[in-house]
């Protein structure tokens, strides 16, 4: 049975953690913050018409796999990435890779992994982990969001790798094939920072970047007013055939607006804090990256923006606290949605300031 030597570490986020560990295993020391920053994966997205579990998509980073692909592009790392349409072939490929003493990153669902705490097991399909060995019927797993290496029975892992649905992993396996011998950070860092700041400030449609943040603020401000955006799309599911002939407006309605408002607010907090963002929806990780980059390049201005972004992160944490307090208030009229809106707008303004500074700093893709 292959039992590869592998050094586990505890990180904040799954995808950046996996990449940091894989690169270290292949001889390239790169901290999680550097991995996250260099892949340019910091984002904010709010897509009201894409619903997950009846609630709109909110994300504090770009798409799953963006970190892997961003690193591949920005650092010129050769990544091997394979999907499988056939689960049994996927299992065979995994075993072969492990037998060849490789460690390998994999995308899985969270729900089917037995070592996850019961209360954390939701149907989220874009979790990342490292498989580094096999022991009888168990796979040895290094999951960077856990303190210690884990074990997972092969049936469960198989299920987790081949769930269907949104962001389905399709058994994705990946590992670095070619690592560049030298990295010219003085060239790479300003470029990725500039690109990221531009994406945040200048995305033309308000589904991503600061526009999305402001749109979310506006929607938050009118959560108490019923409308098509603020309707819970989870019930009724037992629609009878006889309902079909009835006009939409006359079907049984579930005008549970206050419940929707509460779920919506909780959803924001979950996306920001629960799903391994290192605090404040990746803002702290990115601030850590700016600090590391500033030290590496000997640039004090970057250190300053790092501090600025830390303050923005603190504001995000305050915002999360405000939301949870609002959820607890029983009387709907007592919830001050306008105050939540103002808070989010002020955060957006503070964050925009950080990105504007970063743009100024990296003019001509050089740190000036």
């Amino acid at each position: 049975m292959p039992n590869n030597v592998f050094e586990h570490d505890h990180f904040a986020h799954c995808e950046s953690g996996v990449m940091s560990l894989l690169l270290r295993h292949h001889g390239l020391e790169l901290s999680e913050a550097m991995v996250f920053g260099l892949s340019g994966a910091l984002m904010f997205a709010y897509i009201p018409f894409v619903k997950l579990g009846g609630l709109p998509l909110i994300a504090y980073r770009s798409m799953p796999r963006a970190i892997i692909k961003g690193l591949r592009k920005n650092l010129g790392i050769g990544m091997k990435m394979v999907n499988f349409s056939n689960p049994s072939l996927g299992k065979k490929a995994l075993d072969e890779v492990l037998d060849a003493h490789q460690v390998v990153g994999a995308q899985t669902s969270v729900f089917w992994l037995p070592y996850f705490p019961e209360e954390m097991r939701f149907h989220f399909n874009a979790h990342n982990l490292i498989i580094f060995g096999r022991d009888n019927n168990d796979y040895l797993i290094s999951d960077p969001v856990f303190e210690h290496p884990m074990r997972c029975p092969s049936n469960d892992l198989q299920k987790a790798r081949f769930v269907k649905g949104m962001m389905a992993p399709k058994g994705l396996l990946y590992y670095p094939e070619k690592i560049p011998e030298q990295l010219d950070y003085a060239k790479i860092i300003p470029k990725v920072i500039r690109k990221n700041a531009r994406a945040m400030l200048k995305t033309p449609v308000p589904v991503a970047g600061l526009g999305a943040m402001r749109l979310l603020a506006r929607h938050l401000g009118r959560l108490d007013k019923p409308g098509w955006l603020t309707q819970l799309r989870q019930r009724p599911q037992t629609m009878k055939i006889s309902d079909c002939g009835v006009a939409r407006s006359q079907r049984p309605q579930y005008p549970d607006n206050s419940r929707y408002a509460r779920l919506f607010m909780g959803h924001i907090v979950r996306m920001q804090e629960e799903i391994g963002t290192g605090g404040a929806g990746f803002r702290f990780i990115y601030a850590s990256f700016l600090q590391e980059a500033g030290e590496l390049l000997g640039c004090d201005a970057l250190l300053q923006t790092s501090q600025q972004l830390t303050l923005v992160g603190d504001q995000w944490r305050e915002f999360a606290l405000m939301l949870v307090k609002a959820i607890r208030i029983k009387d709907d009229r007592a919830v001050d949605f306008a105050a939540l809106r103002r808070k989010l707008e002020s955060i957006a303004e503070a964050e925009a300031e950080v990105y504007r500074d970063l743009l100024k700093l990296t003019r001509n893709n050089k740190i000036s």
Partner: protein
Amino acid sequence: MKSSKVPQHNISTYGDNKKAIYAVGTDGRYTRVCSSGWKVEEAATKQALDELTRLAILARKDVLAGKASPLYFHMYDRRMDVQTLAQATGLFKWRIQRHFQPRVFARLPEKILARYTDALGISVAQLCQLPQEEGAGAQ
């Protein structure tokens, strides 16, 4: 956030695990700090879980009253909704909703049942009835 201010609230949703949080140490440099959780996060996670439990309990009542098939209960019990179930089974939403009718569900062929049991991770026998205990959901 200062590393000394990282919350350590021992929240239940972590189940004795710790999470890494980025925070600024006394020297002004960022470090990773192990956190046993923040109450704010716990409240949000619990809220999402409670909503699923609430839907499962309502669904159980509908099933007992003969208004819906057991599938309706098991969907929420396994923390899904119609959209997730549709994606996991590859069936259209309207078909699944039709299968919520007890009359239709009773006549489903094995092939379709297998798609449901596969997506939900339960056996056919389990799928066709309600589990004993009230609120013994999402195990």
